[in-house]
């Protein structure tokens, strides 16, 4: 036996250890009917990567995801935050129906570690969604994460700077997010199997007392 064969066997062992599940739905409802109507399959692309390019932090870019994350978590899957720029605030997530025991917060020391951790988490069938904030990412790595998401049947969300919209990306879905007076303006920049170029206004998490 030669070394490449051994590594191949190791890879097989890893795959066997990870186990496999039956088919999963191809989309996770976003919780916003107007958005779901525009997304292929009627929701966020499960088993793929979605890129969210927000004009600024704090305009509702995470609130946009929270209904879908809550739904995935209540279905028993874990939600993994990889090195977020701000602390996910536990009382707010709990208020929005996200069971905290399904939340994992991973701190990393480098971009390389973040990508590694993101890939591991996406591959894990016990994980429903993984959120990452890579400072920069090349197409090859997006593709790699997409394969991991497909293997794990999970949803990968990459928060990227607005300038990333100028480059192409293999991600299945790319949205630009703009601040709007009454919520969030969501521009579909790229949608595999769907239509791009549309802008929707969504009333993401209200700041008013319920």
């Amino acid at each position, binding site marked *: 036996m030669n070394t490449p064969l051994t590594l191949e066997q*190791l890879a097989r062992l890893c795959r066997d250890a990870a186990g496999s599940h039956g088919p999963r739905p191809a989309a996770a409802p976003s919780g916003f009917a107007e958005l779901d109507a525009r997304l292929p399959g009627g929701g966020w692309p499960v088993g793929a990567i979605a890129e969210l390019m927000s004009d600024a932090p704090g*305009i509702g870019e995470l609130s946009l995801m929270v209904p879908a994350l809550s739904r995935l978590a209540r279905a028993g899957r874990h939600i993994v935050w990889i090195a977020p720029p*701000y602390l996910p605030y536990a009382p707010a997530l709990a208020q929005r129906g996200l069971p905290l025991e399904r939340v994992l917060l991973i701190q990393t020391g480098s971009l390389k570690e973040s990508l590694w951790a993101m890939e*591991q988490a996406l591959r894990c069938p016990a994980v429903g969604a993984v959120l990452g904030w890579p400072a920069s990412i090349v197409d090859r790595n997006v593709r790699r994460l997409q394969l991991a998401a497909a293997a794990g049947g999970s949803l990968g969300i990459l928060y990227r700077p607005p300038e990333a919209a100028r480059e192409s990306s293999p991600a299945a879905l790319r949205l630009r997010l703009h601040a709007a007076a009454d919520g969030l303006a969501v521009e579909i920049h790229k949608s595999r199997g769907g239509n791009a170029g549309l802008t929707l206004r969504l009333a993401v998490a209200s700041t008013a*007392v319920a």
Partner: protein
Amino acid sequence: MSGGLWLCIRLPRLAHEALATAHHAAGTEAAGAEIAGAECGGDRAAIEAIEAIEQAAMERLAAWAYQWSSRVSYRLADGPLLWLELGASRALFGGYGALLAKLTAELTQLGYSHACALAPSPAGAALLTQAEEPRCVTTLAQLRLRLELLPLALLALPPQVLAALHSAGLRRIGQLLALPAAAIARRFGPAASLYLQRLCGSASDPRPAWRMPAVYRARFEFDAEVRATTALLFPLRRLLLEFQGYLRGRDCAVLRFTLQFEHYRHPASALTIGMSAPTRDAAQLLLLARERLQLLQLPAPVSALRLQALEFTAASVLQGDFFGSDAQQLQQLQLLLDRLQARLGDQQVRGLALEADHRPERSWRLVAPQPPTALPDLPAGVRPCSLLQPPRLIEAPAVLLSGPERIESGWWDGGDATRDYYVARAGDGARLWVFQDLARGEWYLQGLWT
């Protein structure tokens, strides 16, 4: 009567294959040539070293075999042969066919050439490993019928006895068995007669039962020093598969095990690998070991690898033994947590929990990733998804969208806070969670409506 049913495994290339793994790791070739060279050259030291490797490999295989039988024995001469007594465990494994298939698959995975046979006597099973199929008989009558047609040369008798039998005109085992036992003893010696009775199961054949050691220690010596940690993975995989057999045999699991690295010119170094939940799954153990090995800086090239486990836990509801989807998810999650913690450190992998405190910065905490037991009450006001820790001093905001929400708390622990919280809007459209400290009049940014 010897009683029971014996599975015998012949491992004709045990020494070669144990050594080949050592060579493989060291990146060298030709284990067979080395063994042949040692034997031809009569190099006593080299032969002893090879025998020690063979003995160590057999000890690990005996521990592996113990998962299927509490009566395991082996013999290194003329074989080597490994026996498992199966009478009592037949029902456990869904019949012999399923057991044989599993055993054969694992031996192949371990990288050992093998031939298996099943018979109601240990000597009979050993003989059948060299015969053509069928090699499985379950009654003494079937065994006798099977043996009768086989050539005499298969008998485990000294060459001079076989030569004497041949010159007496005997060719098949049946012809010899037809002779009276007393006549055989007289003409070919009492040892030959006893062997034939044991072969047919008419005389008892006591064997020293292999004892399961209370702690697990396995050692793997490399034929040349290994520099790359990736080269350790190949022998480690075999060690862990054998270790899995030992754990199954003892019906237990481990929470941690230690890998020790021996070096020629440096004291031994060690790596302890811990799990978040007990396991005995070789694939999982290998994944964790691989993560840790990737980060390991070895002080010197490795001459031998040891695996040691001193503490064991009961195997109650174990991963891999239980196929409910919840248990499987838990197992997969544990695997993920172990991998992340192995590479990034325990403190980098956390969960979130609520705290019963009105002060926003104290109403949450990081916890080990475990399900919380009880949930404190949620705050009445709506909270933003992201928190700035600690709050950042800011200028008084220009645009306040809503508020105030008065939060007073902490007078009892010195963390006095009387604050009015507002939602403010920044120039770029971001919504901010800000408060004014009423004691000092200062404004702080504490959260973002991400």
